[in-house]
C-alpha cells in the first residue's frame, strides 16, 4: 500500500525548477532511499511534502488523503515526521525537555499538567535509552555534540509515534560507529511498523539499509528499484558523473 504519493509535483524558485513533474511514492512498511547529486531537489521534495514549501502544481497524498496544502503541524499530526540536514533541537532546553515537546497529549488538562508526568517520562527515557543518550538527559541540548544532537532529533520525533519518518541526511557528520548504530535502530523501528524515507549521500549507508532506492536528478525521478538495480543503471551513473 502506498503510504505517501507525490504526483507530478512542480516547484520553482524564481527561474529555477527545483522539482519538475516529480513523482515518487513510498510503500508502507518500507525503508526507501532517495539519492541524487547536489541540486537534484531532494531537500525541496522533503520541504513540499512536509508543508514547508507550497508546490506550484501536482498533488501530494498521504494514506490516500491530500496533504498538498497542509502546514507542517498538520502533517506532523497526521503521522509524518522529519529531521533536518542541519539538526534542529531546542538548545536551551534539556535533552529530556526536548523529548517532551513533541509528545502528544491532547486537551487543556494535559497542557496544564506538569510535563514530566510518569507515563510520558517513562516513554521519553526509554527512547533516549534506545538511541543511547539517556545519560545526557539533564544537559542543555545545546551542549551536545553534533552526533548526539542528531540522535536526539531522531528520538524526539519518535515520541509521537509517527507512521512515517523522513530522514534528511541522517548520517552526515556522524562517525562510523554511530552510523552503524543508527542503521540498526532504523531497522528495529522498521520491524515494528515504521516506514522510512531516507535522503543520503553516504552510498554504503543507503545501499545497505534500504530495500528500495529512488534516484533524483534535476528535479525529477530518473531511477527506481532495488539498490543493486540502481547501482547498475547507466542513467544514474551519468547523472552523478556526467554533471
Amino acid at each position, binding site marked *: 500500500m502506498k503510504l505517501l504519493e507525490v504526483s507530478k509535483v512542480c516547484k520553482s524558485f524564481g527561474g529555477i525548477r527545483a522539482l519538475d513533474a516529480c513523482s515518487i511514492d513510498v510503500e508502507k512498511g518500507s525503508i526507501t532511499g532517495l539519492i541524487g547529486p547536489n541540486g537534484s531537489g531532494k*531537500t525541496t521534495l522533503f*520541504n513540499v511534502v512536509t508543508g*514547508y*514549501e507550497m508546490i506550484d502544481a501536482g498533488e501530494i497524498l498521504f494514506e490516500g488523503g491530500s496533504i498538498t496544502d497542509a502546514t*507542517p503541524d498538520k502533517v506532523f499530526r497526521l503521522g509524518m515526521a522529519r529531521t*533536518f*540536514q542541519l539538526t534542529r533541537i531546542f538548545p536551551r532546553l534539556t535533552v529530556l525537555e526536548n523529548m517532551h515537546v513533541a509528545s502528544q497529549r491532547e486537551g487543556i488538562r494535559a497542557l496544564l499538567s506538569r510535563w514530566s508526568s510518569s507515563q510520558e517520562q517513562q516513554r521519553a527515557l526509554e527512547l533516549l535509552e534506545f538511541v543511547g543518550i539517556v545519560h545526557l538527559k539533564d544537559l542543555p541540548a545545546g551542549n551536545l555534540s553534533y552526533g548526539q544532537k542528531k540522535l536526539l532529533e531522531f528520538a524526539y520525533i519518535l515520541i509521537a509515534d509517527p507512521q512515517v519518518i523522513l530522514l534528511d541526511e541522517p548520517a552526515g557528520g556522524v562517525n562510523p560507529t554511530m552510523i552503524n548504530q543508527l542503521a540498526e535502530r532504523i531497522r528495529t523501528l522498521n520491524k515494528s511498523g515504521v516506514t522510512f524515507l531516507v535522503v543520503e549521500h553516504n552510498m554504503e549507508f543507503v545501499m545497505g539499509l534500504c530495500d528500495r532506492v529512488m534516484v533524483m536528478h534535476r528535479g525529477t525521478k530518473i531511477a527506481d528499484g532495488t539498490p543493486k538495480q540502481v547501482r547498475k543503471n547507466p542513467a544514474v551513473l551519468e547523472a552523478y558523473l556526467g554533471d
Partner: protein
Amino acid sequence: MAQLILEAIITGILSGAVYALMASGLTLIFGVMEIINIAQGALVILGAYLSYALQDKFHIDLFMGLLLTMPVMFLLGLLIEIVLIRPLKRDRTMLSILVTFAIALIIEGVLGVFFGTNYVQLHSWYIDSTIQIGDYYLSYIYIFGFVLSLILLGLLYFLLYRTKFGFGLRASMQNRTAAELIGIDVERVSAITFGIGVALAAAGGMAYGATSAFNPASHLDLISRLLVIIILGGMGSMKGAPIASVVMLVIEDVTSVIWSPVWANTVFFALLVVILLVRPRGLFGQLESRKQ
C-alpha cells in the same frame, strides 16, 4: 477645503523627505546588521542641537554646518558600533534594542545638561521667510530640506549601487555568512554602515530642527514614528523607507486638516496597525519564509 488638502499633501511630501533621511539610516542599519537602532531619534536630536550650537555660537549657516556635523556624527556612529554593539554576540537584536535605548537616554541626559529642557528651534532667513505659491505660503526651508534630502539620498543610492563598498554592503544585507565567505569584511561594513546611518541622522536632525521645535526629550516621539515608518516600508528595504515616509506624513497632514490635529498623531500609529494586519511584512519587506 480642497485647497487645504492640497497644501497638506505638499507639506506632507516635503516633510516626508526629511523623515526619509532619518528613516533611511535606520532601515539601512537594520538591513545590514539586523539591529534596531533605538538611538536614531536621539541622534537626530543631537544633530539638531549640534547645528543649533554651531549657528548660535559660531554663526555658521545650518547647511554649511552639515559639513562639520555629518563627519563628526559619522565618527560617533563608528565609535558606538565598535565599542557598544560589536561586543554583543548572542541575542543581538534584543540586546541591541536595550543598548541603543540606553545610548538614547545618555544622549538625552547630556543634551539636557548642556542645553536645558526648554524647547528650541533653528532659525535662519530661509526658515523665517516664505515663498508664495498661489494662495499658499511655503517656508523656504521645506524646499531646501527637500532638495537636501534628494541630494543625500541620491548620494546614498550611488554609494549602494555603484561602488564596491556598496556592493559589499548589499551582499551583507542579503546574506551575512555568504558575504563573509566571499571575502567581504562584514564587521567593517557594519561599522561604516552604522556611521552612515548616524551621519544621515545629523542631516535629518538639521532639517527636523528647522521645521519643528525640539528639546532633549523629543527623541522618544521621533523614534516611535521612525520605527512605524520603516516597518511600513519594510524593514531593511531602502526603497520602502522614503516611500513610507512620504505616505505617512501626507496621511498625517491630510488627517490633521480633514479631521483634527489631535487625531493626526493617533492616525499615524493606527495606520501601522491596520497595514500590518493586512500585510505583515510592510510594503516592500521580505517575506519571512519558514526556516527549513
